[in-house]
């Protein structure tokens, strides 16, 4: 498999979307009378029912204060975290398309690129490159995050984005039960190493069911927004040094890399509850990699297991209702101060499995995986200035349990991040 296989597939997807749109334009009647330009939250153009397009711009720039760790790579104070542009809309009113490009990621600049349509009542089909349906935090848009960084679970254990096809929909009214089930070329980009992208492996299957058990219960009005879900993934894992990653908040690897081979299986559970201005969210994940024939004498080794969880809470002090996208009731300089949100998150990522060994006996092909963990407290305040701008300050405390050979700081470590976010 050539090294740029994934990139070329993504580029082909872009071409398909563009050609499809162009062919529709070519066949459309003179449309000057039907063309409608709008600018509500973002600029959009409608060619009647034939074609619509709206442009989204996402920009996140960070100023960071990380601890001084002389053995790790130096980090810049200013970090242009995300600069993205997306075009999305509908074709013939039935097919939804989305094309998104990141300007700060030169290795894989094309992000979500997909077509989506409803084929039956309660059955939508989506194809292209997009987030696999695993991990609530990971599948939440980066502009709708409560904190500056994804959770460790979402960043390193959830599969992330992949190329594939997915069916999704819901049963019963009020989304009582929603489902997503997809098949993807391989594991997602969160966990895929550059070498792994070159290998052709069997598909990865991913599924998630989300239930809103109280959505129809009038007596439990405060609990109607509560939803809980379960997800799994199962895919082939080629032989190699492809175990899951794990990084500290400043971005230094702290999880021991070990040889794996066989299957990678994930289980995840999620909970979200948004009573009024309060938001509560929690997830737990477990990933198991098999290690067939990976011992120093070619013997099978015990599975390597990584676990992560988080629980977070937010409160919109200015009284807006907690939603994915917060729009201040009284924007700054427009009769108010914007919306202020306070939040806290506690999370932990840990690895370590197999028999406990003398420290000198841990290695990439040893039966035991050295126990490492990062326990992280994040507290933050978000100021939604208006519907376009948001300022966020996070103070983060890590309590690291590191590899004996690690050159990073153990124990409590403090970081600070300040983000200026613009969305159109």
């Amino acid at each position, binding site marked *: 498999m050539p090294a740029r296989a994934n990139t070329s597939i993504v580029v082909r997807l872009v071409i398909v979307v563009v050609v499809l749109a162009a062919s529709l334009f070519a066949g459309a009647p003179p449309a000057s009378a039907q063309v409608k330009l709008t600018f509500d939250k973002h600029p959009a153009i409608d060619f009647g029912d034939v074609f619509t397009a709206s442009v989204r711009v996402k920009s996140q720039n960070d100023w960071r204060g990380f601890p001084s760790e002389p053995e790790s790579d130096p980090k810049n104070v200013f970090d242009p975290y995300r600069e993205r542009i997306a075009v999305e809309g509908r074709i013939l009113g039935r097919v939804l398309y989305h094309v998104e490009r990141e300007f700060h990621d030169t290795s894989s600049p094309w992000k979500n690129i997909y077509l989506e349509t409803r084929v039956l009542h309660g059955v939508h089909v989506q194809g292209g490159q997009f987030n696999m349906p695993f991990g609530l935090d990971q599948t939440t848009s980066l502009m709708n995050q409560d904190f500056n960084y994804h959770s460790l679970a979402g960043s390193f254990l959830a599969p992330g984005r992949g190329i594939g096809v997915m069916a999704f929909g819901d049963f019963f009214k009020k989304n009582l039960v929603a489902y997503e089930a997809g098949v993807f070329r391989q594991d997602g980009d969160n966990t895929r190493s550059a070498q792994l992208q070159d290998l052709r492996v069997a598909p990865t299957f991913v599924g998630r069911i989300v239930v809103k058990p109280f959505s129809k219960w009038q007596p439990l009005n405060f609990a109607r927004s509560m939803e809980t879900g379960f997800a799994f993934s199962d895919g082939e894992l080629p032989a190699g040094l492809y175990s899951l990653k794990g990084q500290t908040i400043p971005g230094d690897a702290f999880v021991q890399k070990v040889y794996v081979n066989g299957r990678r299986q994930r289980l995840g559970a999620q909970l979200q509850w948004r009573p009024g201005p309060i938001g509560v969210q929690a997830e737990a994940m477990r990933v198991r990699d098999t290690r067939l024939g990976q011992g120093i004498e070619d013997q099978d080794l015990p599975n390597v297991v990584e676990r992560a969880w988080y629980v977070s809470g937010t409160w919109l002090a200015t009284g807006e209702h907690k939603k994915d996208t917060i729009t201040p009731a009284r924007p700054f300089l427009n009769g108010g101060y914007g919306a202020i949100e306070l939040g806290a998150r506690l999370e932990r990522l840990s690895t370590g499995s197999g028999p406990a060994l003398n420290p*000198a006996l841990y290695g990439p092909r040893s039966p035991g995986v050295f126990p490492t963990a990062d326990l992280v407290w994040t507290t933050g305040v978000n100021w939604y200035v208006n519907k376009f701008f948001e300022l966020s300050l996070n103070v983060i405390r890590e309590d690291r349990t590191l590899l004996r050979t690690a050159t990073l700081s153990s124990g409590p470590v403090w970081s600070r991040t300040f983000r200026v976010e613009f969305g159109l």
Partner: protein
Amino acid sequence: MRWPRIRSLVLLLAVAVCAPMLRVSAQSVGAVTSADTLLDGSALNDIWLHINARDWQDLHTNYQDGTYYPVDFEWQGVKVRNSGIRVRGNTTRNDHKPSFRIDFNRYVDGQDLFGLKALVLNNSWHDPSMLHDDLSMQTFQKMGIPAPRQAHVRLYVGAAREYAGVYVISEEISKTFLTANFREDNGYLYEFHRQDGDNYGFQEQPELGWYIPRFGPKTHETESVANLYTPVRTLVEAVNEARQDNLEDRLGDYLDVRTFITELAVQNVLAQTDGLVGGVGMNNFYLYRFAGKKLSMLIPWDQDNSFSRMDMPPSDNMGTNVLASKIWNEPKYRDAYLARLLDTADLVSSGWLEQEAAREYEQIRAAVYEDPLTPYSRDEFDQANAFVQQFARERGAVVRQYVASIAPEVLRSRRLR
């Protein structure tokens, strides 16, 4: 009653103070003895590398990469687990019988094998006798030049303990080597990497960037380019600026001219074609600058290309190196060089080298015959060894004859002594 109690207290205190020293002493005695056993060449040791079959395959497939793989190193029942192995070498690098470097502390901080942090397994790809490197290093050592210890080993690999042939095992030039030879390890050590197309011989290079790819730092690796390379450039400037008739005056603080002369003499007596004055410029050495000093020293490395020709004049390529050229063109230094040639020739023809060559040949012959990966036939191996022994017998006379032909007074004064 008081005195016995005080005596007991003093005794206890003495034991408490001395116990750690005793422990360290025992460790170091054990370490030196064991490392010596592996590297003194008195026996043909067996090394067993426990390595995953896929990794062994990948090492060969991706032999151009510097990728490390985990390996358990076993020797005489001593197993160093979770070591790291990678393919090494430049012109000897190949996928048939690669050379290896084993780092005992690659995955486990501080792990070593009786004090050795790493070992090199050389394939002797260019040397059918398999003796050139080892015998050269022994000659350097006997002439007072610190050089890495080497020995032959039989290599076995994998769970099935398959025989992978004879290798020359060498200690690496590292902090351990520096401590053993100079009683310090905090200076600046560089490995010289000759670049394709170079024919370098101490010619001045004003740009610091020029030195970066050629002098790979092995200590103080994270220091700034200026800290690492300004002293190297200063040394080169001193070589160029030194007056030919009094090299020590300008150069003495930076390089010991007499030591350099001895190194040149050893390499030229052994007909080394890829050393300090080889056909492609300087090559195969480390540079060590002593801690807190300007003084540097060259340490020989990889002498596979010695024993090249019986009749090679020991003045070959002296003109291509700035310092060697000054030595050769100044009578007092040329005489000193010729005298060291004679010293080395005496050593070589004393019978020691021939006996050692014969002993090592007998030691490895059966193992080399069975070597499944050697690129040479048995005849080539035997003939190459016969030449090494002949070289050891006759080279001294060739060198003496050469000195007599160009400076008979040096030979005469030596005889008078």
